């Protein structure tokens, strides 16, 4: 056990820091580039990713032959940490970078790697995931979007839902049913689908925060070349599970830094805001709650370090990623509730209210956190995965 960074890791961090110092855009205010529409905001993030790519920092742990840096997983972690530390804007093509790229690296044919990977890194092509359907949420393998073989093409018909970045995407990692007669896990295939194909229709879905991060996507007789099958036909479940494990293992990387920074801000507010005639930071009940949040954010960081150490020694992420997902999502909900208690009546104030702290960020974060235990697999599904795949208990469904 050695938690000191190696000389190479330190060197990597120093180089990255100096690059970030001169490149992080000065007009970035945190959540959004002020005053922009969703489309303008996304174009801004896309331009930023392009800059990161040109600087040689996109896809830190991807092989060099596909445009990555060929560095270690730990250096990838350092990258995520440093980006969060300087509050850099996120990279636009987040699903391509974190989930779909690694899946193509693991399962893709040489021509697919050649065709897709570099454009994921440069944000020239934005990706989304076509997984959930109206009747296939937690029970993903029950999905019904079908692909029928038609010569050297597949003909796709069906509907996907909760598709993040669907409106911005050029490509989609789409899970479809290719063998309706086979048991539900055995008849699935993953297709790489051009979102600009005729017959693809994207509709916005408004979330309870008021934003439209995700979409419904409809497929009417969409023709997909057979060469765009990722992995083998009817082996789509294995490919999709690989993506989901990446999602659980990596989605939380760097989040602890975001939470820690939010926590520091909350402590500053607690010192300045009144509670019964004294600063809120003197209130013994709030002190207990704040300390508990601090401890849990710290443990989230440490769990992440352990899990990444394991992956960096043993290859692909495993079902233990579900522990991570469960921990950060439930922690954030507790954290946001404590923040509400610290802020008192000011907590509820929305963006645009001149009395709000941080332009209504705390009311927004409180609502946004509600989705955390649902997105990327509900807490119930994560507990099923831990129960069955980690602890070896009999499958419950």
């Amino acid at each position, binding site marked *: *056990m*050695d*938690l*000191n*960074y*190696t000389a190479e*890791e330190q060197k990597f961090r120093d180089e990255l820091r100096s690059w970030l110092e001169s490149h992080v855009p000065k007009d970035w205010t945190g959540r959004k580039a002020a005053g922009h529409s969703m489309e303008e905001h996304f174009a801004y993030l896309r331009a930023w990713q392009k800059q990161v790519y040109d600087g040689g920092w996109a896809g830190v742990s991807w092989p060099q032959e596909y445009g990555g840096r060929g560095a270690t997983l*730990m250096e990838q972690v350092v990258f995520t940490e440093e980006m969060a530390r300087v509050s850099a804007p996120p990279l636009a093509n987040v699903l391509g970078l974190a989930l779909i790229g690694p899946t193509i690296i693991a399962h893709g044919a040489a021509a697919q790697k050649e065709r897709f990977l570099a454009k994921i890194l440069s944000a020239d092509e934005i990706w989304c995931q076509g997984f959930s359907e109206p009747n296939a949420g937690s029970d993903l393998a029950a999905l019904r979007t079908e692909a029928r073989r038609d010569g050297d093409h597949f003909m796709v018909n069906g509907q996907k839902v909760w598709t993040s970045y669907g409106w911005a995407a050029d490509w989609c990692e789409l899970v479809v049913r290719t063998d309706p007669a086979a048991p539900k896990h055995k008849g699935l295939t993953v297709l790489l689908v051009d979102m600009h194909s005729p017959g693809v229709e994207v509709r916005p879905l408004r979330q309870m925060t008021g934003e439209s991060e995700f979409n419904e996507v409809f497929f009417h007789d969409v023709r997909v070349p057979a060469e765009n099958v990722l992995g083998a036909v009817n082996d789509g479940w294995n490919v999709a599970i690989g993506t989901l494990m990446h999602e659980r293992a990596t989605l939380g990387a760097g989040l602890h830094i975001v939470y820690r920074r939010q926590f520091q801000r909350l*402590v500053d507010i*607690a*010192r300045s805001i009144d509670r019964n005639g004294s600063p809120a*930071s003197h209130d*013994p009940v709030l*002190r*207990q709650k*704040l*300390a*508990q949040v*601090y*401890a*849990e954010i*710290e*443990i989230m960081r*440490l*769990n992440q*370090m*352990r899990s*990444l*150490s*394991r992956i960096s*020694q043993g290859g692909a992420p495993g079902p233990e990623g579900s*522990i991570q997902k*469960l*921990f950060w999502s439930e922690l954030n909900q507790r954290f946001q509730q404590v923040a509400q208690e610290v802020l008192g009546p000011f907590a509820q104030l929305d963006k645009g209210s001149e009395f709000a702290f941080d332009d209504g960020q705390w009311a927004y974060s409180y609502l946004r956190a509600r989705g955390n235990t649902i997105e990327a697999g509900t807490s*119930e599904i*994560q*507990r*099923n995965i*831990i*129960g*069955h795949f*980690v*602890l*070896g*208990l*009999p*499958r*419950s469904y």
Partner: protein
Amino acid sequence: MQFGLTETQRLLKNSAREFFATECPMAEVRRLMEIDGAYDASLWQKLAENGWTGIIFDEHDGGMGLGLVEMAVAAEEMGRALLPGPYFSTVFLAGALLNSLPQARGRLRAICEGRERATVALLEESARWDAEGVRTEAANGRVTGRKLFVPDASTAESLLCIARSGGDLAIGLVAGCRSSRNTAPFGRGSEALAEPRPEGAVLTLAMPAIDRTRQLYCVDFDRAEVEVLATGDEAQRALERALDIATVALAAEMVGGMQRVTEIAVEYCKTRKQFGKPIGQFQAVQHQCADMLLLTESSRSAAYYAAWALQEGAPDARTAVSVAKAYASDAYREAGNRGIQVHGGMGFTWENDLHLYYRRAKASEIAFGDAAFHRERIARMVIDG
């Protein structure tokens, strides 16, 4: 950066597991918990012969010279085995305190070689885990005062007594206690304390408590002979260091206990059938097990990080110690709750081992400050700065 055990640490873990499974199986735990002090001389001899009593002390002082991560590895396995008796207070508490005082390290050899057991007497009627609550007075080579919740005092030859000396904090050594000690019979506590005693006598009175595997005592010093080992800032620093080490060792021990409780529960859920199915197939039960694993693994991350941070002298080491203890204090109790719950009526029986862990969880939660105590310590460090 690598957050995982090295090959050597893994070997240590395996040999510890094997040793405690052989030398201290549950039947032995149950036998010892019915004995005063939960102490067995032949088990102690084996602990010493295998180096466990000297694990964190310099080879120069007769120890194995291992670090605090290795300490956590060993403690985890001891917690899994519910190792009874005075090992923890002798090595991880009193030993750590002697080791923090350069002039007292010579005394470690007797501990390493298994010739002596020791403990630390800190708490008084105020039941405070910091030195602020200490009123016991040491002056002119004599110490007077009443200490409570002293672990394993009945088997300790040496008592390290935290006292005041002319207003300063002092660490006093009261040696040869076992021979001059007077153990009051059960139920005669207040009478025994009131009875006249020969001058200089140390009265040790059992405080029967929830965890029988590790027993607590009231120790009453009345002008007992004491050798003051350190005073003032030096005493304060040594005490803080020893308490940090003992707290981390305890947190690691708790991880081992949680791990075992989780394993017992998962095993039961695979075999016990109701409605024609293993109960582990029901999500209401399965999810309890998933939560137990989450609590255990999270406690493990925190405990090992704290051990590493203390060993390396990292700037956040003291916060890390409190994070580990605050989290494990709630987590071990909660793992115990769920482990017993999924066992149904069987979990509530004397014959099932779970209550032994449940009792240890409560005693461990309290020892060296509960979750609220450590959260306040965190608040002082991260809110007050």
